[in-house]
């Protein structure tokens, strides 16, 4: 038995020796050295990418052909446009079969352009009303796969869709409420639609609004299918047509593509619609891509592997994949650096009396406290540590695409612990002998911050915030929770203290109608107020209301400038970081322009070999 044990001694000794020799004597890097190394690494990463934003150069003229391979994460749940409003994946898939919106917003020029209709705005100053007259293109059709049959699209289609689908109270579509405007006396009035001739229609606004195109811009489905179904089956029965078991080749398309195959859980196949109205500058039909195949891949890691294996043509790069893609030798793809994304996470403090203790409510309702918290938020550190240097601090209220975005109006409460201490001191908060921050009543400043547990980036941001606060003696407990639980806290129980979340971007000044006005159900720090709880919220309400109904851009700018400045001064929520967006596209495709403002316009892509 002892002999057997002796046999193992050389093995144990070998392992010990290997372990000892593997320990090096070189010194550890200092923090500065580590940061320099990191910066070099980051530059190396960016050197492997290129910037080619849209809106700068003209698209080259291409030739049709080729198959574009991509992935989607979910199966469509329906092919019915009415039921699709509850399902993003279905609306994304069906969106490609629609002719398009009436008008198109160009985020580079920051102006509205015609899409399927040209438009004219007629203002009736004396009646305080306005009309938007749309004239539809003459070459809009619903066509069918492998068939010469065509159904022309006219004003009747838009009027039907506006009145009887979007405006049908029984169908309970969210777009129904979007057809109403709040009048100066507080009542609601509907924006009506009228057919002027076969191709022309007019939206009548009961009062002058700032951005009428945004308020009435819409897309529309095939009336010749939905109208008989509505008459025959009623508003309930119409939801049961065009379900997922419908033969997709029977679905008409007014858009760029036909859906020609759907294999559940496997793939969606699209083919070019030759009758689609859009053309390039030389009058050639676009999109140039002949066929698109979207594999249904629920796992993002699998999507990444498929791209690496050359099985898909583009990949929206996650932060963790960038280095691997950049460091691949002789890649057959290019990585496009799209710049900072428009959205950013934010931190907000609950100011609703129902869910908080009195002293915590006292801190959170204090403007200086919130300003101090913003001053303790080390956004640069978040950029470096979480986003590997690939991002920028989020200091503006509006997104860059917003027509009233102003570079000069930004959050001045950036990282500055001394300033934070000053602000806290001004409201009676001081550090005691042990460095613990106490309020004027001697209570230690401590609160919880919640965020969704499935998002590591947010948890990391909350931890950095907590760490910076601990340096001035404030204890912040990071509590990751289930996302639905968070939504429930925000919308019904109101029992949270601080939260780290994202709402996307402020693309339009009137966007977030449920967030910024005090009566909004997602005015998260104190929702559904009967009367504005504070004077600044009352002012925000006034500015939001005035701005929404001021069409004169110069006058509107004054209003929206004050609106932004007020929110950046009161800081009911403050933004953290805009990370950078990257996209990888195979080199065989030409006409690739990508940025986070306009995304990738795949309709202009064409195969280089086809040149």
């Amino acid at each position, binding site marked *: 038995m002892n002999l057997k044990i002796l046999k193992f001694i050389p093995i144990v000794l070998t392992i010990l020796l290997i372990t000892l020799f593997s320990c090096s004597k070189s010194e550890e890097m200092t923090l500065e050295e580590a940061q320099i190394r990191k910066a070099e690494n980051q530059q190396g990463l960016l050197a492997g990418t290129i910037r080619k934003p849209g809106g700068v150069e003209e698209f080259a003229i291409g030739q049709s052909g080729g198959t574009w391979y991509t992935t989607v994460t*979910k199966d469509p*749940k*329906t092919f*019915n446009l009415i*039921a699709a409003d*509850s*399902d993003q994946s*279905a609306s994304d898939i069906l969106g490609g079969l629609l002719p398009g*919106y009436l008008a198109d*917003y160009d985020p580079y020029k920051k102006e509205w352009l015609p899409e399927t209709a040209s438009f004219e705005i007629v203002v009736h100053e004396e009646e305080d009303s306005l009309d938007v007259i749309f004239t539809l293109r003459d070459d809009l059709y619903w066509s069918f796969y492998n068939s010469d049959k065509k159904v022309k699209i006219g004003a009747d289609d838009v009027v039907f869709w506006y009145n009887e689908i979007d405006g049908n109270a029984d169908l*309970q*579509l*969210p*777009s*129904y*409420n*979007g057809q*109403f405007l709040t009048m100066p006396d507080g009542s609601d009035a509907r924006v009506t639609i009228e057919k002027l001739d076969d191709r022309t229609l007019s939206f009548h606004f009961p009062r002058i609004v700032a951005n009428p195109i*945004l308020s009435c*811009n*819409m*897309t529309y489905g095939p009336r010749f299918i939905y109208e008989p179904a509505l008459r025959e089956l009623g508003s309930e029965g119409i*939801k*049961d047509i065009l*379900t*997922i*078991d419908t033969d997709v080749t029977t679905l008409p398309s007014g858009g760029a593509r036909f859906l020609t195959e759907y*294999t*559940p*859980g*496997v*793939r969606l196949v699209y083919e070019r619609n030759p009758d689609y109205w859009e053309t390039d500058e030389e009058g050639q039909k676009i999109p140039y891509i002949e066929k698109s*195949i979207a*594999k*249904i891949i*629920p*796992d993002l*890691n*699998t999507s990444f*592997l*498929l791209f*690496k*294996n050359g*099985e898909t043509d583009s990949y929206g790069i996650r932060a963790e994949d960038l280095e691997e893609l950049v460091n691949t030798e002789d890649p057959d793809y290019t990585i496009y650096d799209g710049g900072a994304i428009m959205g950013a996470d934010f931190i907000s403090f609950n100011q609703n009396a129902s869910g908080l203790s009195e002293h915590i409510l006292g801190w959170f309702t204090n403007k200086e406290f919130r300003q101090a918290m913003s001053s303790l938020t080390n956004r640069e550190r978040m950029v470096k540590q979480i986003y590997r240097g690939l991002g920028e601090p989020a200091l503006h209220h509006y997104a860059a695409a917003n027509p009233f975005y102003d570079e000069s109006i930004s959050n001045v409460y950036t990282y500055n612990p001394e300033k934070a201490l000053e602000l806290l001191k001004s409201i009676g908060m001081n550090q005691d002998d042990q460095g613990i921050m106490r309020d004027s009543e001697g209570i230690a400043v401590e609160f919880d911050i919640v965020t969704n547990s499935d998002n590591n980036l947010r948890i990391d941001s909350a931890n950095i915030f907590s760490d910076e606060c601990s340096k001035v003696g404030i204890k912040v407990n990071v509590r990751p929770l289930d996302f*639905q*639980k968070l*939504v*429930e806290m925000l*919308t019904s129980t109101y029992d949270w203290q601080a939260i780290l979340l994202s*709402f*996307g*971007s402020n*693309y*339009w000044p009137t*966007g*977030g*109608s*449920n*967030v910024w006005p005090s009566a909004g159900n*997602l005015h998260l720090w104190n929702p559904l107020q009967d009367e504005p709880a504070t004077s600044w919220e009352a002012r925000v309400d006034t500015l939001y209301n005035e701005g929404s109904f001021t069409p004169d851009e110069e006058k509107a700018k004054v209003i929206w400038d004050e609106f932004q400045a007020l929110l950046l001064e009161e800081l009911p929520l403050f933004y953290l970081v805009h990370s950078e967006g990257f996209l990888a596209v195979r080199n065989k495709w030409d006409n690739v322009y990508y940025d986070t403002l306009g995304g990738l316009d795949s309709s202009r892509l064409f195969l280089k070999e086809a040149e």
Partner: protein
Amino acid sequence: MRDLYSKLMHLVFRFRGAHPLLSFVLNRLVSMIVILFILGFAVFALMELAPGDIVDRYVQNQMLAMAEGGGDGKGTNGLFSEEQIAARKAELGLDKPFYVQYMHWLKQVFVDQDLGRSMISRAPILFLIKTRLINSILLNMISLLMLTVISFALGIYFSSKVGTRTDLAATFIALFLHSFPGLLLLILLQLFAAVSGLFPVTAYPGFPFGENPGRFVFSYMHHITLPLIGAFLGGIGGTMRMIRATMLDQLGQPYITALRARGISEGRVYFAHAFRNTLNPYITSSANLLAGLFSGSLILEIIFSYPGIGRLMYEAVLQEDIYLVLTNLMFTSFLVLFGMVLADILLAVVDPRIRYSNK
């Protein structure tokens, strides 16, 4: 009344005496229906306890999306009003107590013979399940067959080598595989596929059967090789150890010694006697194995993008699409219970001691 009851009971006992196995099977089928009924009730009750419902979830998500300021920036979307939310709930029957909803569902399934429609998409549930069920059954049956044949062969082989170094190594490997996390194993296999390029990183061909049946079959076999290896490696450890242990147990029994003493050939001792008796515990456990394969293949289906029923169920649970969840769950539970009944019948066939007969 009393007479009728005693006559009825007399008939029942006579039937049980005359057809013990049939009566046993009928008994199990009745209890299966009762269990399924209670299970459905419990699922509805549990879904009721979960915060919110499908409409709340949708409205909440829509509120968050609204806050983004209008999706692609081309148009504004309205918001649901309280009346609209209430109307939607009423339309789906969510405003009623859960037991009423459950009864409504039962009536729909058994009286109207309609599995209903998904709450979200209004897609027929039968279509949703049908399109994926065949894929799940195909994969799981191949997997079960492969697992059974190989683990039996290995279990019997290594039981004959008991005490040798080969047996020690096999036991160690079986134990290692049994304790290796299944998720990690699948991820490693997928990485292997990506790095080596020998296998695809997904488990299903990129085109449907109808496009090219011949090519599809070959492509399918190529695509499922790695996931099959994953399922096989994950399951072989436990099964092989069980077979080996039962075989050793049987080989140590006095009747084996008696058989050997009579000069019966070693092959006959192994296969006609010892092996037959190892089937008993295997059949009992394979009832669970079938259901386990269905629920266990969820991770495989997600990682390898296999279009099976697990993925459908997973999404339905996340979205609280209760009818879809219920139908799916009932199906899986039915499989377990049916598997058990089947196992009992099989046991009676292979094991003369269990014939449920008093003769």
